[in-house]
């Protein structure tokens, strides 16, 4: 096949990826968009298979078979509540793929033929033109080094994110010195990269980049806790795209560059949205500690004697006369697998003529859009899922707000108490509603470690217990009235 024809097919594939993402701008066109994008992928892969000659296909076929099997099983078996873990793993695999491509190119171009581990430690004399003439050669080796660096950070960082989301790793570990330790690791990797560029045959430098970057990924994500995960996942998503684009520079491949850039910007924009929704800078999420500074707030002082609790059937009496109800889901709803029960309660309310909407905070759950996917799974129509900015003005006309498994995103201290660590964070103003029902296991604080004055307000009642059970009891009681 002529190189021009191949480039032309890559162009078509790139256009299909772009149209695919464009399809995602509306729920109606999204399925078709995903299909277009997949078609582009099939085209790009097919045309590449037709051009590569002399390839040892046994490795390729084995890789595709194993990958398709693993990917297929993961995609069909994963529960919607576990979607953050799935995406974290896929980010890591993307980074790992770019990493191994860069290493394979490095070994090929250096002409390294290792027969044992000790061979790898030997410096190799590399011909000047191994990586291309002049500037092209420099760009190639810089791209290889950067791809290894970013790919390795993405790989281990994502694996740690997965372990945390899957609750395999519960504690937060960090390097002594925190950001300083991470900074030293990064500095070491960059210095090794400079050494490698000056002498592309320096295998020790390549191994140093690899090792330091793998460690950096580990230590960057290990100290970060649950509610900050949306930011981490979005950022690693971006890294996996940037690594792919860099791999495109190594191979001079246009479709890799375009697709990688699109993924890179997507992750960055989502990271930005998440940070704004928490009123924190990216560096604060990655390196900072929440609730640092500010006076210690005594939870007892806020809650003492002011918290009213209620049984589900008492709440049902309140709901019976409600004209407008807003449901605020949080990570607790996902934990309790309560999305279907919530939908049934909403159906019962709509059956008696009430208007029901869902208020979704951008950082509710463990990844961007997590709550929307869970509620879509429970067959809640997507036009009932209302963003924070659009739902906030409606709370004053809302009879009952039901908060299930959310805490910090409803805390009025973010609006009113200037010394508080969450001051300035945009929240759902549920306290403006006429009545608030909070379904929660106990009065324990959320991720920010703060008491929530909402729970002590006169028009708030607490329903303690398992979210799913409480909602089902409310629905039953409501239907019996």
């Amino acid at each position: 096949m002529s190189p021009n024809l191949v480039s032309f097919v890559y162009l078509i594939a790139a256009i299909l990826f772009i149209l695919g993402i464009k399809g995602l701008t509306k729920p109606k066109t999204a399925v078709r968009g995903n299909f277009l994008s997949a078609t582009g992928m099939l085209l790009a892969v097919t045309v590449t298979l037709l051009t590569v000659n002399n390839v040892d296909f046994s490795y390729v076929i084995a890789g595709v078979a194993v990958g398709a099997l693993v990917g297929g099983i993961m995609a069909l078996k994963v529960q919607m509540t576990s979607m953050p873990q799935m995406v974290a793993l896929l980010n890591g695999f993307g980074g790992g793929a770019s990493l191994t491509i860069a290493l394979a190119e490095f070994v090929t171009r250096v002409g390294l033929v290792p027969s044992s581990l000790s061979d790898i430690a030997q410096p190799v004399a590399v011909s000047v033109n191994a990586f291309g003439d002049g500037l092209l050669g420099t760009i190639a080796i810089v791209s290889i080094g950067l791809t290894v660096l970013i790919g390795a950070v993405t790989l281990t960082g994502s694996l740690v994110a997965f372990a945390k989301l899957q609750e395999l790793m519960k504690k937060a570990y960090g390097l002594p010195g925190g950001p300083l330790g991470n900074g030293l690791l990064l500095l070491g990797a960059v210095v090794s990269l400079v050494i490698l560029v000056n002498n592309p045959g320096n295998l020790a430098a390549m191994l140093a980049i690899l090792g330091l970057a793998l460690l950096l990924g580990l230590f960057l994500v290990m100290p970060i806790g649950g509610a900050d995960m949306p930011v981490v996942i979005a950022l690693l998503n971006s890294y996996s795209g940037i690594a792919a684009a860099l791999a495109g520079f190594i191979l001079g491949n246009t479709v890799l560059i375009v697709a990688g850039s699109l993924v890179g910007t997507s992750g960055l924009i989502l990271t930005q949205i998440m940070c704004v929704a928490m009123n924190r800078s990216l560096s604060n999420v990655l390196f900072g500690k929440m609730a640092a500074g500010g006076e210690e707030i005594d939870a007892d002082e806020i809650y003492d004697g002011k918290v009213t609790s209620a049984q589900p059937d008492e709440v049902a009496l309140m709901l019976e006369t409600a004209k407008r109800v807003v449901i605020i889901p949080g990570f607790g709803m996902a934990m309790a697998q309560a999305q279907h029960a919530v939908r049934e309660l909403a159906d019962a309310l709509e059956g008696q003529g009430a208007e029901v909407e869902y208020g979704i905070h951008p950082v509710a759950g463990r990844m961007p859009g997590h709550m929307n996917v869970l509620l879509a799974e429970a067959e809640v129509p997507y036009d009932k899922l209302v963003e924070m900015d659009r739902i906030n003005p409606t709370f004053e006309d809302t009879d009952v707000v039901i908060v299930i498994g959310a805490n910090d995103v409803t805390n009025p201290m973010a609006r009113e108490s200037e010394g508080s660590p969450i001051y300035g964070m945009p929240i759902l103003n549920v306290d403006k509603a006429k009545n608030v029902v909070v379904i929660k296991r106990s009065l324990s604080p959320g991720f920010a470690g703060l008491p929530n004055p909402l729970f002590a307000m006169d028009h708030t009642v607490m329903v303690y217990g398992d979210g799913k059970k409480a909602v089902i009891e409310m629905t039953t009681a409501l239907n019996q009235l």
Partner: protein
Amino acid sequence: MDILILLLALFVLALFLGVELITKVPPTLHTPLMSGTNAVSGITLVGALMAAGTDSSPALVNWLGFVAVTLATINVVGGYLVTNRMLAMFKRR
């Protein structure tokens, strides 16, 4: 050199296009957007095929190529399938 400038131009223009496109995706679809872009980043499969090595390559290259092809294929197959599963739920009504 000319090629390098072209690739760089492509990279920068794609970044701008990415910003324009992604900012229009509604928050409701942010999870499928992430899994969908995971699938797109599986385009490294193309790079993996190119880097997988030939019959005469050292075995190390072949094995690295195998790992790259496997990981990229997981992204492509897993990413598109799980995105389709999610989006099909949004379609109803």
